[in-house]
């Protein structure tokens, strides 16, 4: 058997229902045609939600931060919860596009573009929250390192400054990664458009005139590899830095060395769940059953299972450490998670993240797209509540009894949180209509290569 023929066997199992390269272009590029009623309905809903976000934030900017429920002792509420939630969501995109690329996981091709777009828009959503939380958002430039009027520089020992560097780097890198990967696929969209049309010209411009020459592919492949190698440690570092926003403070329930790996596992857990939540409707609406097979969903479910188990283990470890430390405030913080004033949040977290994912051990569940969709939504809810539990229960009950308090999110805060989901959906819905949401060129790498009859005959021998 010649080496070419062996190669042509590749991936015949991953996408058995795709017949030819050309079919991929037809199936994926039809997603960029005229949108249907469902898309307009969802887009209208998302636009209305963005309106809610704009109204709530505008109101808060004019009236002041007093519109929120934030006060001493709970100075971080649902804004920071939602910030951490969206940064976490962002993580699986780069995991799928970079880490699974380095590990040569053959199932990543179908989902990675959607996951990467999700990453970019999730970071864009997360990035709003520090600004919203600032109150006086017009001073947002204070976040960046420049000497102020007294020639003082920011304190680089502060994890909040690290966070600025980590999140802006992550946004830049994941956007560039997405755009680089898009070039050949935008060129495919261009070649399908009528020459001379506006669509053709826009795609020609945004593909930077990509022609798919050997030189382009050679350097593209290498650059992709190096970017993946750089993005891999970046993914792990960004959520570690976010976790240090908490772990560096001596607040009971926060000050633990387990935080970085615990947050990274949680981020990937929630991110993969979000990929499932997004790809199930896309698959259904655009008829992509041949591209997103049960094999892909099975693999994503397994990834959820692994990271979910790490998260559950981290919960238990935290409890053990609190008990073993012998520190009364530490023990109280963890008791409060399930039996304090916010017991309901703690139980939602444990049920959604610790118990429901146990179902993923069963193959029948992993092979049922509907079941996975429902479970993924539970995981998303659970992971939001995990951050709420960590932030609010700890801050409301620190060391000094006279400084204990409670926190209740206000209508403005809830409006902004709900609006952030709409803001994310707004960009994601636009993206899947403008740029190919499935990687056309990379998918062909795992399809059998077309061989002439003589080569096929040689292979059969």
């Amino acid at each position, binding site marked *: 058997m010649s080496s*070419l023929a062996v190669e042509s066997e590749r991936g015949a199992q991953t996408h058995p229902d795709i017949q*030819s*390269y*050309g079919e*991929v*272009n037809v199936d994926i590029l039809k997603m960029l045609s005229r949108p249907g009623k469902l898309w307009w309905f969802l887009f209208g809903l998302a636009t209305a939600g963005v309106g809610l976000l704009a109204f709530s934030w505008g109101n808060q900017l004019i009236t002041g931060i007093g519109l929120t429920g934030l006060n001493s002792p709970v100075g971080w509420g649902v804004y920071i919860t939602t910030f951490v939630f969206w940064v976490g969501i962002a993580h699986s995109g780069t995991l799928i596009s970079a880490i699974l690329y380095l590990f040569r996981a053959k199932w990543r091709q179908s989902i990675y573009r959607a996951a990467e777009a999700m990453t970019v828009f999730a970071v864009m959503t997360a990035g709003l929250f520090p600004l919203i939380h600032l109150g006086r958002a017009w001073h947002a430039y204070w976040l960046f*390192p420049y*000497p102020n009027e007294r*020639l003082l*520089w*920011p304190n*680089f*020992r502060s994890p909040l400054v*690290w966070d600025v*560097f980590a999140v802006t*780097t992550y946004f*830049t*890198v994941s956007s*560039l990664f997405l755009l*680089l990967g898009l*070039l*050949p696929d935008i060129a*495919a969209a*261009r*070649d*399908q458009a009528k020459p001379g049309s506006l669509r053709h010209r826009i795609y*020609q*411009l945004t593909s*930077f*005139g990509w*022609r*798919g*020459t*050997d*030189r*382009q*592919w*050679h*350097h*593209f*492949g*290498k*650059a992709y590899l*190096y*970017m993946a190698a*750089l*993005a891999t*440690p*970046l993914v792990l*570092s960004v959520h570690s830095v976010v976790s240090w926003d908490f772990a560096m403070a001596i607040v009971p329930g926060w000050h633990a060395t387990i935080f970085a790996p615990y947050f990274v596992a949680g981020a990937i857990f929630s991110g993969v769940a979000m990929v499932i939540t997004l790809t199930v409707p896309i698959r259904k609406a655009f008829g992509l059953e041949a591209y997103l097979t049960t094999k892909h969903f099975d693999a994503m479910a397994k990834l959820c299972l692994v990271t979910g188990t790490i998260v559950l283990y981290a919960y238990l470890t935290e409890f053990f450490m609190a008990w073993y430390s012998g520190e009364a405030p530490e023990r109280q913080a963890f008791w409060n998670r399930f039996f304090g004033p916010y017991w309901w949040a703690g139980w939602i977290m444990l049920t959604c993240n610790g118990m429901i994912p146990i179902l993923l051990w069963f193959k029948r569940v992993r092979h049922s797209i509907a079941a996975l969709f429902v479970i993924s939504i539970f995981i998303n809810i659970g992971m939001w509540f995990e951050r709420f539990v960590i932030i609010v229960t700890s801050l409301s009950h620190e060391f000094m009894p006279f400084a204990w308090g409670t926190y209740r999110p206000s209508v403005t805060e809830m409006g902004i949180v709900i609006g952030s989901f709409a803001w994310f959906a707004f960009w994601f819905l636009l993206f899947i209509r403008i740029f190919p949401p499935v990687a056309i*060129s*990379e998918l*062909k*790498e795992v399809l059998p*290569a*077309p*061989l*002439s009859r*003589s*080569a096929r005959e040689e292979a059969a021998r």
Partner: protein
Amino acid sequence: MNNNRQGLMASFDYLDSTVESIKALRGNGFDEITAFAPFAEHKLEQALGYGTSPVRLFTLVGGLTGAATGFAFTIFTAMDWPLVTGGKPILSIPAYVVIAFEMMILFGVLATVIGVFWNMRIPDLKTSVVYDPEVTAGRFAVYVTAPDDRLGAARVILESNNPVKLEQDTDGEAHG
């Protein structure tokens, strides 16, 4: 490109025909060859004899510059106005590792992107050259330029591998 050179663009449905054409052309002394492919096909790169890519140098230099900048910046700002906070040393190197690390990644990626665009020779928006729009859909293509008297030999080699389309390019300027 020399003006008395002309080009031939042959499109193929099959990968093996493409690889065979490239090998035969190279074996007969044609070295101005550009191959077009719908995805990064390593068989074509091998047939064309590619080695390493200079992009890796961009990545390395960018990454090292970033790490150095990160350390230099944090150390400079701490020394610019020495102020003890939290009883920590003025130069808290472990904390600066985080900044230097992020800057290493950022500069490394930016340099890689610049390097890859430079080496891929894009943006390149000219549309006047011969090009087969079916390539992004799944075809492979071989483009070869040669002096007028040798063009016939190249045509014979390309035709022997049954191209679906064979175009002549009088300008000979479609190399990528």
